């Protein structure tokens, strides 16, 4: 593999524009994925000002309309504007994706650090994690949701739960290799406390792969939330999300495929762009991994 080593001599200071061009050349996946993702994030935040109407207002006299100047993507079986539902739907996906990535990383990090460093805890914790990983993520989420009242918070909790063991495993494996390093030994020898070793010495080394993992978890969480909502076990029906908008349209799929395919397209592009950012980050932060995958 040939890595393009671009060295900048002090004489020619790159302009900011030149720097951006160089970055895009060297990391095309991050650039493309990041740009797409930024567009989707901005569109979701700015949804109210992008020509949308109230995504849940029902208009029985305008049911199942084809796309027109007034309703860009047409309307659904209740006469709700599909374009507005798709624009607002991105909010749910992004909120769930980000929250799950943050929560599962923090929880998994805490458990993984302790479990990897303290042998006494390790055996028990890892057996529990093995058991949790044997349950398919969607099934675990479904079980939790079936026992609770539908809400976004429950969806976030239900999607976070199956992701935690994956983070724990990653953090633990890093800690296990780092634990034997001389500098940890030195820290122990001068009497550094266990919490301090964990936070000051082990945590910084575990961060780069963890950030990459968090990106993939974000993509997977967006997918699972959409799947759950599509199955009727996710975001409550009064909040528009890509998954439940697709579920609403499925009865009319043969007549109006756009009702399912349009939200599906936005969902696919979002997950794709998050994964591209993840791949790019992996190449940037962890060159060792980049060569292997």
């Amino acid at each position, binding site marked *: 593999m040939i890595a393009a080593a671009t060295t900048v001599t002090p004489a020619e200071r790159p302009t900011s524009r030149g720097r951006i061009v160089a970055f895009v050349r060297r990391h095309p996946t991050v650039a493309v994925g990041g740009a797409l993702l930024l567009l989707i994030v901005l569109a979701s935040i700015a949804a109210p000002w992008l020509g949308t109407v109230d995504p849940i207002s029902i208009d029985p006299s305008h049911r199942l309309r084809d796309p027109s100047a007034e309703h860009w993507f047409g309307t659904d079986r209740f006469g709700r504007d599909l374009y507005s539902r798709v624009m607002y739907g991105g909010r749910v996906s992004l909120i769930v994706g980000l929250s799950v990535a943050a929560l599962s990383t923090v929880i998994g990090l805490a458990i993984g650090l302790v479990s990897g460093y303290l042998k006494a805890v390790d055996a028990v914790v890892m057996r529990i994690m093995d058991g949790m990983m044997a349950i398919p993520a969607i099934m675990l989420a479904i079980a939790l949701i079936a*026992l609770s009242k539908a809400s976004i918070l429950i969806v976030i909790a239900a999607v976070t739960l199956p992701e935690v063991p994956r983070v724990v495993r990653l953090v633990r494996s890093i800690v296990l290799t780092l634990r034997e390093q001389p500098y940890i030994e030195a820290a122990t020898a001068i009497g550094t406390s266990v919490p301090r070793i964990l936070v000051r010495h082990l945590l910084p080394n575990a961060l780069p792969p963890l950030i990459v993992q968090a990106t993939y978890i974000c993509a997977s969480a967006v997918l699972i939330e959409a799947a759950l909502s599509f199955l009727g076990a996710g975001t409550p029906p009064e909040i528009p999300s890509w998954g439940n908008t697709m579920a609403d349209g499925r009865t009319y799929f043969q007549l109006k495929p756009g009702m399912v395919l349009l939200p599906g397209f936005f969902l696919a592009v979002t997950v794709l762009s998050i994964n591209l950012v993840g791949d790019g980050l992996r190449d940037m932060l962890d060159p060792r991994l980049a060569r292997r995958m």
Partner: protein
Amino acid sequence: MHIFLIRRVLAAVPVIAVVAVFVFALLHLAPGDPAAIIAGDLATPEDVAKIRTKLGLDRPLPVQFLTWIVQLAHGDLGNSIFSAHPVSELIGQRLEPTLTLTVMTLLISVLLAVPLGVIAAWRVGSWIDRFVMGFAVFGFSVPGFVIGYALIWLFAIELGWLPVQGYTPLAKGLWPWLSNIILPSVTLALAYMALIARITRASMLETLNQDYIRTAHAKGLATNDVLIGHALRNAAVPIVTVIGIGVALLIGGVVVTESVFAIPGLGRLTVDAILRRDYPVIQGIILVFSGAYVVVNLIVDLLYTVLDPRIRY
């Protein structure tokens, strides 16, 4: 070998035990009163009380746990709240379509993805490598239900080559059975193929750099023999591992795919159970799926010794 077999099977027991305890604990850790939620908004207090008795929630926790474990040990998964049928019977009725779908998907994925990964690694950096890697990112990102609807739209509605939805048992003829299962299997296979192609390429890249590959080339072996006999053979362990781990992904996909294609399998049973909040059924399906996952990965572990005789336990 026999000692290893026994030890490995015994190691699977705690995993299944944790799953069982976990599923049991979920019912009790979930916020709110599960009996009230299962009963629904329109239930009278008597209904809620009835469900509480049915689920055994009115008894002390240790008693509940013991009954649940003893029942499980006897293969009794309890009864459905909705239809009062035994859960094991409900699951048995839905097994054929789901098994058909997963076995088909597994076949398609392995038969296509492994060669794709091998070629990509062999011609690393070429257009075919870039195509395979691009496909891997795509297959991993586009949700199964979006692909499923896109395929239905193209092949069933626009071209009219295949039926839109449904399932025909194999007993009613080969083509009706096959024509119904092609689209769902391809849908489900895409993500799985992405995973397998990617790991095959990565693992092949590592072995292709080894000295014995150069030796094999140097002594004049045909490229095919080197790629398959020498490189793939040695790259097989990580590939088989990922195929095993990917079964979890496959099972999750089954639930969604069956829903898209209206296939009356375990996935549909799950969705129906969600809508009716039939918790014993959900519990039963989770146990069956997790059990399947553990068994598949047990087989994968045993395959290691066949694929790589250096691995001895």
